[in-house]
Every structure is written in structure tokens, then in C-alpha cells.
């Protein structure tokens, strides 16, 4: 055992491994940062290239792309208010606010540190407690998933901004949108109006690009003719980074743990993890009012949350052979093509390779830190691009991105529709982030709810007799009622005074 680990450590640092990781992370940054191109897409595109490589080399390339892409999403979220991937949607609110205050470089750096820390954290979890975590993840049946989704939906309260009522309306609207297409349980089509394309449902990526990127492009283009005299010179000025990092260490550790936990459960994903972490950071923060208006803590939480997922999704993949999301499904394909079927047996037959992959994941994150350092300087220049040149380029990227999800123009149309929603709704005080949350969590909530009732044959008690489910439902209850309790106690206090 000890020998295997020492050998794997040696293998990881082979020059070709380092080179492949370098290229993977670099490509990941680009895929993540460009709106519409996601880490998932990058990994899928990279797959055929890896067929000719050795299994470890192939995994290094894919992991580099995956981690780089998950971090890269925050770059565009912070700089141009368009999350490159769904996982960075929680970063937008605070990231862009900070960029507007001229603290883009600080925000980018914080996001980098948080991402790298969380990546290494989850890599260590994979190395040390993967079997235990995967056993726990299997406990998640339909009732547990439903309770988790409900808990997730209570986050609408913390991302709605000033108007909770309108936030809830948008969240429900998002959940409604997610019901379009084939019903996951019965196999019948809903709200498709006989349209072949709508039967496939509304894809998350075009909806995301529309809600955030297109709406922002419309907003910006309204003022594009005004020559702004202001020089964006603050991008280079950054506070002492080590001190900033230490200040948010507690949030980062907590969010990394949340990300790792969520990531180890198949079928969840980085978007949910980043929202949960953001929510928790806001709940425990002493400066709640800063959240949504440029909180460093918010960025640290969201980014640590989504990158904590990266290592953890490998847990069900490597220990059980079950991919938790599309990225790991592609990785499973890559390993299968190499003649290796991940699962309990692989740890016995190819233990050295397994450990090389795990150490590789940690190395990928270190590479991300080094590359990120230079990439930030480069990317921060985007702020210097005049709006009249930036917008057309962005628009092209948006169209290409949403087309490329499924090679269909229909998705580009979906993007435009959501662009209009994203542009108009905020004008009337309806925030769009809860809508995204609804689209992400709606299908999980619906499917698992109906599965649970099928399993229990209609007995509603299944949601409270399963302990994990009960815990999450209680947490949701607390999360909803806490603001009211506070409100009441404040009222009492003010009456006494």
C-alpha cells in the first residue's frame, strides 16, 4: 500500500503528465470563461483526443479541463456579469458588483484561491475517505433527494435581494420551465404543443446564457454610444492576497466541505453546491447586507463550493463506477475506452493508477494556481475593451455556445427568449437568479418526489421516516422560519424599548 502510493507520487510528476495537465487547465480556463462553452463541453470535445493516450495521461487531460473549466466560469461572471457555466451563477451577483467598484483583480484572485483550496480539499477527501463517502452517498434515495432539493429551494430567500415575494415567483416560474418536455417518470410530453423540439425540454445552458449574458448585452448596448471617460486602472491594485485569503479561510473551508459533500452524491452538481455554500456563508456572516452588493465572502463561498465538487464527483465514479454528472460520464467513457471499468474491482487490479489519478487531481489544482496567476492579468484586460467592440464579440460567442450544446438552432432561439426574460424581469424588480435555481432544482425535486411516492406506494410518511430526509426537511423549516423569528424578536425588543 505504502509502496503503491510512493510509486504513484513518482508517476504523477512525469514530464508528459505535467505537460498534459498544463494544456488541460489552459483549455479549461478558456472553455469556462467563454459564456456558453462549459467544462462539460470541453471535456466531451477533448475525449477523442485522449483515446490515443495512456489511461493516466487521458485522465490528467480531462481533469485539467474539468477543474480549469469550473474555475474559469467565474472569470466572465466577475468581469462581464455573464457566468461561463451554471456553477458560477452564484458568483455573478457579488463578483460583478466588485468589478464595478474597481476590485476586479481582487475578486478574481479570491475566486482563484478559493477554487484551488476547495479543489485540493476535495482531492484529499477523495484520497482519504472515498469509500466511506460513497457508502453514505448510496443512502441517498428518492426521499433524501427530494428533501435536499427542498432545502435547496429555500435558498431563494437569500438570493432574492430585496423582494422575497418576487424572488419566489421567479423561482416557481423556473420550476415551471423545467417541466416542459418529456415527463421523466411517465414518459409523456408536457407543454410541448406538438413541437418536436420542445419535447426535448428547455436546455439549461441556453437558458443560462439568455438570462445572464443576453440580458446584460442588451443592457450594455443601450449605453454603448456614451463614451465613458473613466479609466479602469484599478484592476492591478490588489490587497495583500495572503491576508485576504486568511480573512475568509473559515468560509472557504466550510464551503469546500459543502462542495465535497454535494459532489459525492451522484446527480447533484456544482451549481447546487455553490448556491448552498453561498447561502450558508450569508447565513453565518456578520455582514449580511454586503451579500449581493460585492461581498468577498460571497465569492469565496460560491467558488469554493463549486470547485469542491470537482474531486468529490470522482468518488462515486472511481469507487462505484457510477458517474454523478455529464463530466464524469465522459470520463467513465474515457476509462472504458482504455479497457478499464471503474468500480470496486479497479482499486484492486490497478491501485497504482487510481492513486496516480488522485494525486494528479491535487497537482491539477496547483497548476491552476500558477496558471491562474498569469491568466488573471490577461483576463482583467477584458475590462479595457471598449463596449462597442466587446458586445458584438460576446453576442457571437453566445450564439455559438448555445448552438454547440446540442448542435441545433432551436437552442439559440431558446437563448433569445430567455434573454428577453432576463432583460425585462429585473426592470420590474423580479430577480433572475431564483429562476435559474428553479430550473436547476425543479427536475430533481419533481422526479425524486414522484419516485419516493412510488417506492412508498403513496405513503407520505417516507419523507419523515428516512433520517437523512428528515434532517434536510427540518433544516429547510429552520431556514424558512428563521427570518420570521428574528423579525418577531426584533419587534418585541423594539416594543420593550
Amino acid at each position: 500500500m505504502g509502496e503503491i502510493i510512493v510509486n504513484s507520487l513518482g508517476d504523477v510528476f512525469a514530464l508528459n503528465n505535467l505537460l498534459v495537465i498544463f494544456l488541460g487547465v489552459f483549455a479549461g480556463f478558456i472553455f469556462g470563461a467563454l459564456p456558453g462553452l462549459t467544462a462539460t463541453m470541453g471535456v466531451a470535445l477533448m475525449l477523442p483526443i485522449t483515446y490515443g493516450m495512456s489511461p493516466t495521461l487521458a485522465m490528467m487531460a480531462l481533469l485539467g479541463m474539468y477543474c480549469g473549466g469550473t474555475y474559469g466560469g467565474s472569470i466572465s461572471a466577475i468581469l462581464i456579469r455573464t457566468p461561463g457555466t451554471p456553477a458560477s451563477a452564484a458568483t455573478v451577483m457579488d463578483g460583478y458588483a466588485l468589478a464595478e467598484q474597481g476590485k476586479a483583480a481582487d475578486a478574481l484572485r479570491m475566486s482563484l484561491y478559493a477554487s484551488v483550496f476547495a479543489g485540493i480539499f476535495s482531492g484529499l477527501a477523495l484520497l482519504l475517505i472515498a469509500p466511506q463517502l460513497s457508502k453514505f452517498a448510496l443512502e441517498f434515495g428518492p426521499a433524501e433527494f427530494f428533501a435536499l432539493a427542498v432545502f435547496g429551494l429555500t435558498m431563494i430567500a437569500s438570493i432574492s435581494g430585496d423582494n422575497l415575494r418576487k424572488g419566489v415567483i421567479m423561482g416557481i416560474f423556473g420550476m415551471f420551465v423545467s417541466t416542459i418536455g418529456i415527463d421523466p417518470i411517465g414518459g409523456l410530453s408536457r407543454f410541448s404543443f406538438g413541437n418536436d423540439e420542445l419535447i426535448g425540454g428547455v436546455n439549461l445552458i441556453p437558458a443560462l446564457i439568455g438570462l445572464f449574458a443576453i440580458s446584460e448585452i442588451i443592457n450594455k448596448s443601450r449605453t454603448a454610444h456614451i463614451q465613458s471617460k473613466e479609466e479602469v486602472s484599478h484592476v492591478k491594485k490588489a490587497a495583500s492576497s495572503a491576508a485576504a485569503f486568511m480573512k475568509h479561510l473559515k468560509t472557504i473551508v466550510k464551503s469546500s466541505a459543502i462542495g465535497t459533500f454535494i459532489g459525492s452524491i451522484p446527480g447533484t452538481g456544482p451549481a447546487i453546491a455553490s448556491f448552498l455554500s453561498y447561502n450558508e456563508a450569508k447565513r453565518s456572516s456578520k455582514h449580511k447586507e454586503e451579500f449581493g452588493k460585492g461581498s468577498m465572502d460571497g465569492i469565496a463561498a460560491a467558488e469554493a463550493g463549486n470547485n469542491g465538487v470537482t474531486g468529490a464527483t470522482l468518488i462515486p465514479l472511481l469507487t462505484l463506477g457510477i458517474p454523478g454528472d455529464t463530466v464524469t460520464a465522459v470520463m467513465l467513457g474515457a476509462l472504458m475506452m482504455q479497457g478499464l471499468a471503474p468500480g470496486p474491482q479497479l482499486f484492486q487490479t490497478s491501485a497504482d493508477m487510481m492513486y496516480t489519478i488522485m494525486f494528479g487531481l491535487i497537482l491539477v489544482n496547483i497548476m491552476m494556481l500558477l496558471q491562474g496567476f498569469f491568466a488573471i492579468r490577461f483576463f482583467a484586460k477584458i475590462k479595457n475593451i471598449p463596449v462597442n467592440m466587446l458586445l458584438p464579440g460576446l453576442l457571437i460567442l453566445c450564439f455559438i455556445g448555445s448552438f454547440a450544446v446540442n448542435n441545433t438552432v432551436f437552442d439559440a432561439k431558446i437563448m433569445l427568449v430567455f434573454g428577453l426574460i432576463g432583460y425585462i424581469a429585473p426592470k420590474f424588480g423580479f430577480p433572475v437568479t431564483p429562476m435559474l435555481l428553479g430550473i436547476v432544482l425543479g427536475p430533481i425535486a419533481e422526479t425524486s418526489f414522484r419516485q419516493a411516492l412510488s417506492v412508498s406506494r403513496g405513503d407520505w410518511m417516507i419523507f419523515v421516516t428516512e433520517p437523512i430526509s428528515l434532517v434536510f426537511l427540518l433544516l429547510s423549516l429552520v431556514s424558512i422560519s428563521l427570518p420570521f423569528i428574528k423579525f418577531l424578536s426584533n419587534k418585541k425588543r423594539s416594543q420593550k424599548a
Partner: protein
Amino acid sequence: MKKNNFIGFIVMLSLLFILAACGSDSNDNASGSNDSDENDAGSEEDSEQESEEVDYPTKPIEIVVPWAAGGSSDQTARALAEAISANIDQDVTVTNREGAGGTIATAEVAQTQPDAHTILLDAVGVFTTQPHLKDVQYSIDDFQAITGLTYEPIVLAVNGDSEWDTLDDLIAEKDKGTQISYGHSGAGGLPDLAQAGFFDQAGIEAESIAYEGQNPAVSALLGGHVDTIAAHPGSIMQHVESGDIKILGIFSPERFDELPDVPTFEEKGYPIDMSVWKFLLVSQETPDDVKNKLTEIVEEAMGSDQYQQFLEDANLTPMDLDGDEVVERLQENNEQHGEIIENMGLSAE
């Protein structure tokens, strides 16, 4: 500020270039559908001989896969694409066009009737179950089959801790009033139909639990949230070897070479034949000489060591059928599957 403009412009330009490079990799929908006009020259020689002279392919060949990247269909298409492009002068690309159980991509090809440079990879259910479940805008008459590709049997599996060790144990539950929950990859899919058919014939009360895809169903079985699942053996063999999952029976007419001890349902008196097999299609309007040439190219690629090695690595069994046999078998399966769907009350009509 001038300098900043310039740098900004370069940044944007380079990003766009990178994108363009990525784009061309996955979607080569280049226009020019009339390239095969010259093939109309009607000579009546032996097709074998003539196909040598057919001017095909004249541009990159695109294999359309109606499922997501990374799945077994996608892997098969990519392995085949690589094997084909080794033998011809043109590139072969794979386009994933996911959605609605494969029906969207299939309908698209059926409606646009592209020339033979677009090949559609499809699976049996698209033609035998989907048309019974909903209105679809295609039928097998819109296509010509090139060849069968792969065959994946479906097995019935239970958790390693389950009290049922053999199929007989499960069948014996008949009159005990046991309620079974069975998991599968999606409503109306073959694993759903196979189990529904079996429990119905065996007189066991069973509730269907639909998951989105095979993997969630397997984890539900591992976690003990359902009693049985039906799945492809390739993805669960790991767990069978580690003792976490037991395979009780196989929904094929004959036993599977790799699982010689697993009985078929037919042996036990439940004649259910359900397995997923895949094949290649081209537009109905493809001229015979082009089709023959394409068949020749594909068969050569399928015979290559490279492709054979892939099949072995990916646990896939080749499906040795020619174009006409594919259509024939589809029609057979269509009747059988349609009947089960009707019995289940899922039928669209």
C-alpha cells in the same frame, strides 16, 4: 487608451479563433448537398464492381448520434469514425444531437433527407417503442439501413443482499402478496418494458420506479432503494464480481456467452426478447451505388483490428446483420414491443 483598444481587439480575436477551431471539430454541416449528382450515371453493371467507381465520399462524412457524448452509442460512433477515416481521404466527424429518447435527431434526418455524407446511428427503441409512446415524425420507411452495429443484452439484477438468489426464488413470490419495486432507465424504455412484461406474466405485483438513465438506477439498487433493476451487463459486471449485485436472468432468446450460468426468461416459461441493438441508417433517397460503396467502407472499418479492439474494451458484442435484415428485425421487434406497451396502458393512441 489606443494601446488598450488594440490589446482588447487582439484578445477578442484570439478567443474567436479558438472557438472557431472548436466549432469545426464537432459540427461540420457544410452545405453542398448535390455532390452526388454524378452518381446518377446509370450503368447496369454488377454493383460490386461499379461501387469502385462511385465518387463517394466527396466531402467529410458526419455520423449523427442522437445521444449525449460519452455514452456507449457515442463511443461506438467515435471508434467507427476513427476506423473509417483511416481508410478514406475524407474526415469523419461525430455530431451529438441529444433529446427525447433519440427521436429528435431521427426526425430531423428523416425530414431533411440529407445525402449519404450524413449517417444516422440509431438504436432499436427509437423505431419500436417510441412510435407507440408518442407521435413521432418519422418511420423506418424514411431510411435505408446500412448494417447492424452492436448488441447489448438486458439482464434482471438484484442487490447482493437480496433474499432471491435465482430466478426461481423470484418467481416463487407469486402468491405471497409481495410488492416489488423495480427500477429502470426511463419510462417506456426497454428495461422498463422487459420487467413490466415479466412481472405481469409472472403475476407478481410490482411498481415501476423510473430513473433518468441507467446509472442512477444502478445506484438505487446498490443503495437498496429498489428491489430489482433491468440493465446492460457491461455496466454492472464490476458489482457482480464484487458481490454487491446478483444477476438473475437475461431477456434474450439464448444465454449470453459472457454469462453462461444466467438463465433466459424463455427457459422459465416467459418468452420475453428484449435487447438493445444499434445500427446505421442513411436517407431513403440514397442511390444504390452510393449505398453499396458506403456499406463497403463501413464493413471494412468494422473489420479493422482497431475497431475490434474497441468492441472488446467496451464490452460490446457485434451485431452481424446486413441492411435488409436490420429492417426485417426492426419490424419484428416493433410488433412485440408495441404489444407490451399496449398491455401496460402507455400507448399513445
